[in-house]
């Protein structure tokens, strides 16, 4: 009898096929990829928790991580099992109803790990019966989904030179796509695809050229050798175009542009790559010759919609540089761009989408105040698109920074920043959850936050948007109106994205807060 109950509670793990990853809407109780679907929507079709009952949401269970690093993971849920990552590169499988641990993968890190911004990890990918994690020491590891045993472990790059992995991999077809971090170490950036079964490298796309490449002309001298353009946030995939859409990071060094005159391709770009070959189909550069560290490493959102009377395949991109972009994702054509938060660095965008820079906005030794701040108007944390309301939701930051110009002497394995930044004294920073009409960039509604957020949003078919504050609350808003409906104070800062799943017929909302993962339900 007892045995029967266990079988009833934990269904046998079925293989996660590419077909399943292509149609997550057919199994809304699971959360199979980082963004919930390949289009980057972070939308849950579940509506058991909705605008009528969300006020009764309470914690069902809490999982406490032993790490004091930032806890940025998005859990994946497959058939009653949740897979999370914990800093620096651990993986833990949990029972979705009780929060109890099913297995752990613990990785020993060297003492002198080189990483700019905390030993963080944003999540796993799953395909077949394997779970994939990128590690801070720049390996890609495949684990047995049922036991956590290592099936294979490949070196993606050398951490001694500042390469690390924080991004959640993307499993597509027969490949595992994994990006690299290290934009503050003057690395040569790339995006990799590995054979999902064997771990053999299928292709590598270099985001920074080598001598002789036409793009090398966009870098003064041999400055491309330290060009960075890391790929540290999970992108999107469109099975119809068979293209991967991925954002690239800042050029190196961050704030000293004098040593790298030129547009610095492919830094701060959206790159569209053929999934099978890794060949570049098109690119769009948001911030040519960036001197403010405005990585274009945000999550691209893919929708099909009518744009100026024509049905089009669109790519939506609220950029860290405070401009909102709409591109045609088949061709890369620039369709729309406008500021969506305070910015003081560009007069606007020209017809091709290139920024018209204002003078006096570059970093100086004495410091130059510019909006947005280094953390940007948006960052790695996820936006959400609801096919119900047809709004794009973005956790927006309203804040500036003083940017400093500094020396930029390159030594492999040491930070290569060329300056720095600090907050503007006396500035009243704030933030907002904004709902945008995606094809116009107009704001439908706004919910103000006391300080700028550093966490993403989830929309659901229950007419809800979930988000969080830097002061420790997770909250729910009415997706149509922005009206606040529920909140919970968890006593830590939130640095992650919410997701939702169903287990035993009950819907849950999950999000990390401080050093714990909170899972909520309506009793």
């Amino acid at each position, binding site marked *: 009898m007892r045995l029967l109950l266990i079988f009833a509670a934990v269904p046998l793990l079925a293989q996660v096929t590419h077909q399943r990853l292509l149609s997550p809407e057919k199994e809304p109780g699971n959360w199979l990829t980082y963004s919930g679907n390949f289009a980057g929507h972070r939308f849950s079709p579940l509506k058991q928790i909705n605008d009528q009952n969300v006020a009764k949401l309470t914690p069902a269970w809490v999982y406490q991580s032993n790490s004091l690093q930032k806890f940025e993971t998005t859990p994946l849920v497959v058939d009653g099992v949740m897979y999370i990552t914990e800093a620096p590169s651990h993986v833990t499988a949990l029972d979705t109803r009780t929060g109890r641990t099913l297995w752990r993968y613990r990785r020993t890190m060297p003492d002198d790990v080189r990483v700019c911004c905390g030993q963080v990890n944003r999540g796993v990918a799953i395909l077949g019966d394997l779970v994939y994690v990128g590690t801070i020491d720049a390996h890609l590891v495949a684990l047995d989904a049922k036991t956590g045993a290592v099936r294979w472990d490949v070196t993606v790059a050398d951490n001694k030179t500042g390469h690390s992995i924080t991004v959640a991999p993307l499993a597509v077809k027969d490949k595992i796509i994994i990006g690299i971090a290290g934009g503050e170490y003057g690395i040569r950036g790339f995006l990799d695809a590995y054979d999902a079964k064997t771990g053999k490298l299928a292709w590598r796309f270099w985001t920074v050229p080598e001598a002789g490449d036409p793009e090398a002309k966009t870098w003064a001298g041999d400055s491309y050798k330290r060009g960075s353009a890391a790929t540290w946030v999970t992108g999107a995939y469109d099975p119809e175009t068979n293209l991967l859409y991925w954002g690239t990071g800042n050029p190196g060094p961050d704030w000293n542009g004098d040593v790298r005159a030129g547009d610095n391709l492919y830094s701060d770009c959206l790159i569209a790559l053929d999934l099978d070959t890794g060949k570049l189909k098109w690119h769009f550069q948001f911030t040519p010759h960036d001197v403010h560290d405005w990585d274009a490493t945000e999550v691209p959102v893919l929708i099909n919609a009518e744009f100026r009377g024509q049905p089009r395949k669109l790519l939506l991109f609220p950029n860290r540089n405070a401009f909102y972009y709409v591109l045609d994702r088949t061709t890369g054509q620039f369709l729309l761009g406008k500021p969506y938060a305070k910015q003081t660095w560009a007069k606007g965008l020209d017809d091709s989408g290139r920024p018209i820079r204002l003078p006096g906005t570059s970093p100086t*030794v004495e410091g130059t105040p510019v909006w947005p701040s280094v*953390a940007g108007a948006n960052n790695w944390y996820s936006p959400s698109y609801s096919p119900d309301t047809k709004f794009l939701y973005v956790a927006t930051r309203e*804040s500036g920074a003083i940017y*400093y110009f500094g020396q*930029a002497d390159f030594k492999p394995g040491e930070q290569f920043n060329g300056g720095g930044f600090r907050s503007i004294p*006396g500035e009243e920073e704030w933030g907002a959850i904004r709902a945008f009409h995606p094809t116009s960039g107009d704001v439908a509604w706004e919910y103000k936050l006391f300080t700028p957020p550093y966490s993403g949003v989830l929309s659901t078919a229950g007419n809800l948007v979930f988000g969080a504050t*830097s002061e420790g609350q997770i909250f729910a808003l009415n997706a149509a109106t922005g009206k606040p409906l529920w909140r919970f104070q968890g006593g830590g800062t939130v640095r992650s994205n919410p997701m939702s799943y169903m287990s035993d017929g009950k819907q849950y909302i999950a999000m990390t807060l401080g050093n714990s993962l909170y899972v909520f339900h309506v009793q």
Partner: protein
Amino acid sequence: MLWWTPFLLFQLQQPLDIPDRNPHTTAADIEQGRRLYMGRCAGCHGPSGDGGKGANLAVPSLPRASADRSLYRIIRYGIPDTEMPGSLMDTHELWQTAAFVKTLGKVTATPITGNTKNGEQIFRTKGTCLNCHSLGNEGGRIGPSLSGIGARRSATHLKAKIETPSSDVPANFRLVQLTTKAGKSLRGIRVNEDTFSIQIRDFSGNPQSIWKDDIAQITSEKKTNMPAYRDRLSETEMNDLVAFLAAEKGAQ
């Protein structure tokens, strides 16, 4: 207010080998350090380092950084739970800044001419300072504690703050006035705030916490409740009071 803001992105790891002595102390290093300091540090510590929002650096020995290595670490990593942030300057620039900071302590501070005994008298009577500030085991709860203030702030800075206190108010000493939907009025010092609530210390010294949903009207002023003493005290009285506070080094 958000001292950790720079650490949203950049968390600096501690290197294993910081030299004991500053390796970059030439005149050219100090000059470059001065430029770096003016851009990054002077906003809080003052152009001559005698403090302001930040601590007084124009002292012969820095309380938190008596050695080169500890000074380097503070400039590099900041001081947790304070408004002192870390810095992304490269190693050479950090040492140059440290070299310049060390020169600040060699400048002779403006001599304190006041009489500390008279100053204590003014502190306790005419100045009514203890109504709001505490000193050791006595005093009020409205303003910040003045225990050991002379070890943290220079006489020049103390004098400026007493004369015109509203010139630079920290975010957690803002004056807030609000009316609740139930008609209750409340005035006090903002001690904390988030998207949904605000915490105030009222003028009886009691903490109050209010949901923003319950607030009908709220105003926040970038000034303090402390009166300007420029016209309340004579020049001699002011110097005496400053001398008393500058000599208040706290429990040693």
